[in-house]
């Protein structure tokens, strides 16, 4: 029994039905509507930056998957964000290949310089830090993504410069 108290807020979120139309297209990719859930959540996250409860309710309604079920899916995957993050998100890999090439030093540096550790956002809202498991750039370790940009072979010599390019 889904009561719909925040019906109107969730509806108001999708102005112009962008998400609705997107999901309609995505549904055609799969034999069952349920399968549209992951792409739908990606689309919602891209649109709103993160997956608020309202966004989840909206996805729930557009996909026919109950809200609790959507929440279960969202929280299973590390890259679905259930809280808003900073302007730039640093995805720093600290898994073994990066660790042995100095990723822990970088983590320490980011912590000292911006006051952030895993999952946190700097006070000015500029950076959030997400510690990653392997991001598949072990030959150029340590590596990180900032938003969608890849940065490789990071060291104490170039990290400052990289960070400076994100305002």
């Amino acid at each position, binding site marked *: 029994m889904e009561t719909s108290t925040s019906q109107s807020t969730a509806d108001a979120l999708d102005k112009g039905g962008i998400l609705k139309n997107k999901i309609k297209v995505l549904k055609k990719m799969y034999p*069952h509507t349920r399968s549209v859930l992951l792409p739908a959540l990606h689309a919602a996250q891209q649109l709103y930056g993160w997956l608020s409860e309202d966004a989840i309710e909206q996805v729930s309604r557009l996909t026919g998957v109950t809200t609790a079920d959507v929440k279960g899916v969202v929280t299973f995957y*590390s890259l679905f964000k259930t809280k808003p993050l900073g302007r730039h998100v640093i995805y720093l890999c600290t898994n*073994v*290949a990066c660790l042995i090439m100095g990723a822990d030093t970088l983590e320490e540096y980011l912590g000292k310089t911006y006051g952030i550790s895993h999952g946190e956002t700097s006070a000015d809202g500029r950076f959030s830090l997400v510690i990653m498991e392997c991001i598949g750039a072990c030959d150029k370790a340590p590596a990180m993504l900032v938003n969608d940009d890849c940065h490789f072979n990071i060291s104490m010599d170039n990290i400052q410069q990289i960070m400076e390019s994100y305002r």
Partner: protein
Amino acid sequence: MKNIILKNIENPNSHRIEEYIKAGGYFALEHAVNEMTPRDIIDDIKKSGLRGRGGAGFSTGMKWQFASLDPKFPKYIVCNADEGEPGTFKDRVILEKNPHQLIEGMVITAYALQSVRGYIYLRAEYPHVEKILNDAIQEAYAKGFLGNDIMSRHFRFNLSVHRGAGAYICGEETALINSLEGRRGDPRVKPPFPVNSGAWSKPTIVNNVETYANIPYIVETSPKAYSFLGTRDAPGTKLFCVSGAVKNPGVFELQLGTPLREIIYDHCGGIRNGRALKGIIPGGLSTSILTPDMIDCPMDFANLARHGSMLGSGAVIVLDDTMCIVKIYERAMRFFEHESCGKCTPCREGTGWMRTILRRIEDGMADMEDLATLEDVAHNVAGKTFCPLGEGAAQVLLSAMKRYRGEFEYHVKYKKCEVTDPSLRWGHMSMDELD
């Protein structure tokens, strides 16, 4: 030796369909569709001896045959591009530089299995690859290699990319299928196996990117030609991705059975900074560590098994003597704990427990009894988990504890790391130096 999988790799536009065709691409598909029956193809793949490149090394031809014998339709073709095994970046190279070879391999598979729908399950950590793949798929549609009337032979196959969202376990095929169906990525009970009841309960083939990339070559040459490469038991070439303490890390396409020593010293230029080799993780973090005396082990399924390890994904992580085993395995266990899906008791509870004990050892807060407990907990996890993730976590720790026992004990006894010289640690400057 010529490259099969990384062919054309030096061409900066290798990902474009024109370049791929120019280098002989999509010829295998044409050959398959025009001159072979689906049965022929499955037989050839079986004969070639190709084994899956995703980690388990299961015979690809057998897998296809099981799916093709199942009377249920539709059948689904899924590419496992979740590449999450720490240390692995080989699929990424194929996806970035040679996406059409993957697509061609998948279309041939689809033809062999009379499947009309395929998905590439792409890990979310490769955002830029999604675009490359989608562009390549569009190109293939435009040229009639995908769509409703492929090569004007009334053969239909549609392909799209399905993005994961950050979960290593989704590389496990049944978890991947759950994720494809829009669910939490818990692994499923086997049997039924995906070949009989996979995506949407229909017969489903899940193969690794590299596995598909081998298909065009086998179809276009012959199973026999293919089996000349590699070893008897493990034919073909393999992408080895080497990282860590070597001079030239990177991806190398080499024949299966190439000795580890050749990979590290000939292809990667040996250990960096003149340090000594301390250990090798040969197939990704879930495979057991090898000691330097095993350096001559040929890199194939059987020989690595003989050394108590596995070929896995072919991800070689090289450790030198500045690196602390306890710290590495504490970090490894953090990975397994973080990625445990939580479905089964031993993995969910055991990985966390092992990690906390390792943390205490690393922090110099543990005694010998803890070491014994750690070993016992690992034994209690091993052999009892639902899927190989938890199993791997326990096994790699057990072998590290066995092979580097002294280092663990040193940590416990002296409450500090054997690798003492801070300037040696991790090859990089530490924070203290920076200030």
